[in-house]
C-alpha cells in the first residue's frame, strides 16, 4: 500500500478487488472481529434470538415474511425486532438465530452487494449473491460452535431466469436452493406445514402474502418464541414482495388489515 493517507489505493497483489469483506480484512480487520472462545463451551449469559422467517415462491417472484419477536431464554427481548431486510434492489434476506450477529451479518451483506455493483459497474447474479452469503455464514462458524448460530434465508428475483428463487442455509454455510418455499427458526416447522398445505405452483403474490401471514400465525400459535400479530400494540409481521420491479415491503396498514381477516377465519374457533 502506498502512503496516501486517506484514499485506500492498493498496489498490485494486495488489491482486495470488488469484495468489501476483503477490503475490511485488509484495512480495518478490527471491525470484523468475531467472538472467539473455546469451541463447545456455551456463553454464560442469554442473548436475543430471532425466530420464525419464511420465503414463498409465487408467480413472478417471491414473498418473504418474518414475525417481530426476539427472545432471550424465556423472556421476550424485543417485540418489534425486524428480521427481514432488503439485501439489494432485487433480493431480500431474513434471519433467524442470534440477533446481534445476524443483524451485523446482514449489514455487511448489504454493503458487500452494493460495493460489488459500484466497483464492477454491474450487479452480482442472484446465485453469486447467494454464494456470498454462504461464505459469510461459514465465517461465523467459530461463533456457531458456541451456540451463536446465524441461519439466514435468502430469496430474490432472478432477472436472467425471470423467476423468484429461494435459498436456505445451515450453520456451516451450506447453501440449498429450495424448489418452492422455506421457513427458518423455532416456529419454522409449523409455518412450513401450513405453507405446504396451501401452496401450489403458480399462486399469485397476493395469495402467497395471505399464506405467509397465516403460517406465521400458525407458528406463533404453537411456538412461544414466535410473535403473533399484536392487535393491542399494532405490531404486525414484516412482509415483502420481490418481483421484476424490485424489493418492496408491504405497508403496515395492509398487513394489519390482512391480519384482521384471521379474526373471522378458522383459527378463531381453534381450541387445540
Amino acid at each position: 500500500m502506498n502512503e496516501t493517507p486517506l484514499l485506500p489505493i492498493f498496489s498490485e497483489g494486495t488489491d482486495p478487488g470488488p469484495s468489501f469483506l476483503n477490503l475490511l480484512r485488509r484495512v480495518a480487520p478490527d471491525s470484523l472481529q468475531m467472538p472467539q472462545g473455546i469451541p463447545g463451551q456455551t456463553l454464560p449469559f442469554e442473548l436475543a434470538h430471532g425466530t420464525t422467517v419464511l420465503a414463498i415462491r409465487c408467480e413472478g417472484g417471491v414473498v418473504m415474511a418474518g414475525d417481530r419477536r426476539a427472545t432471550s431464554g424465556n423472556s421476550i427481548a424485543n417485540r418489534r425486532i425486524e428480521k427481514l431486510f432488503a439485501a439489494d434492489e432485487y433480493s431480500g434476506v431474513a434471519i433467524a438465530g442470534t440477533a446481534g450477529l445476524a443483524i451485523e451479518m446482514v449489514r455487511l451483506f448489504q454493503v458487500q452487494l452494493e460495493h460489488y455493483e459500484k466497483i464492477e459497474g454491474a450487479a452480482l447474479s442472484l446465485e453469486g449473491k447467494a454464494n456470498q452469503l454462504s461464505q459469510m455464514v461459514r465465517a461465523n462458524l467459530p461463533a456457531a460452535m458456541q451456540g451463536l448460530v446465524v441461519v439466514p434465508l435468502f430469496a430474490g428475483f432472478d432477472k436472467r431466469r425471470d423467476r423468484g428463487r429461494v435459498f436456505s442455509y445451515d450453520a456451516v454455510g451450506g447453501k440449498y436452493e429450495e424448489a418452492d418455499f422455506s421457513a427458518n427458526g423455532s416456529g419454522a416447522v409449523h409455518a412450513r406445514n401450513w405453507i405446504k398445505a396451501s401452496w401450489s405452483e403458480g399462486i399469485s403474490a397476493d395469495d402467497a402474502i395471505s399464506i405467509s401471514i397465516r403460517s406465521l400465525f400458525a407458528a406463533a400459535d404453537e411456538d412461544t418464541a414466535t410473535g403473533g400479530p399484536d392487535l393491542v400494540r399494532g405490531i404486525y409481521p414484516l412482509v415483502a414482495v420481490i418481483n421484476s420491479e424490485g424489493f418492496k415491503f408491504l405497508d403496515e396498514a395492509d398487513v394489519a388489515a390482512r391480519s384482521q381477516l384471521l379474526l373471522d377465519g378458522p383459527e378463531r374457533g381453534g381450541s387445540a
Partner: protein
Amino acid sequence: MSMPFYVSPEQVMKDRADYARKGIARGRSLVALECTEGIVMVAQNQSRTLYKISEVYDRIAFAGVGKYNEFQMLKIGGVRLADMKGFQYSREDVTANSLANAYAQTLGQVFTNEMKPYEVEILVAQVGATPEEPNELFHILYDGTLMDESDYTVLGGDAERIGDALENTFRPGLTLAEAIQIGAKSLADEGVTLGADQLEVAALERGRPRRAFRRVTGDELLGILS
C-alpha cells in the same frame, strides 16, 4: 559517477503540471449542471461500457476526465472509502466534502512525490437531501487543487470554451431534460451536434429512494436530445 543536474523546484512543478495538462487535454470534456431534480452530468464518451461517471454513495457521484485507468483507480478508491465509512459509522456520515478532501490529499501527494502526476481532473458531486439543502460540486485538479463550485462546472482541456458557452445558456431552475440539452450543446464544437451515442449522461436525482444515482440512456436520452 555522474552528478544529477540541478533542476529548480519551480521548473519541476511546472514540467509536471504541463505534462498533466497535456494528458488531460487529449481527452474529451465533461460538464455537471444543477437542475431542479438534482445534478446532471454530461460527458462526451463513445463507449457504452467504459464510464467516466459513476455512483459512489447514496447521494454522491464521481466523474473523471483524462487518463481512464487513473481516474478509474480514483473512483474505486472513493467507493472504498465511502463504503467503509458508511459501514463503520453510518450512511449519513458519508459526505462529498470529506471524500473531496481525501481526493485532494491523494492527488496532491502523487503530484509532489511521484515520478509522474495523475493526468486527471475529477468531480465529486452530492445532491442535497431536500430542495433546501444545497447541492455540492467539488472540482479537483491533477495537483490536488480543490474548488467548491456551484450552478455548473466543467472538467477537461476545453474547459474555457465550454465554460463560456454555459455562462450564456445556464440559468437556475432548469429541468433535468433542459440541463442535459444545454450540457450536450456546450460540449459540442461549433456547428456540430452530439448524438445520444456520443454522450454519457447520468443524474443524481433527489427524489429517488436512497440511491440517487441513475444513468440516462437509451430511448429516454434520445427523446431528450431530439
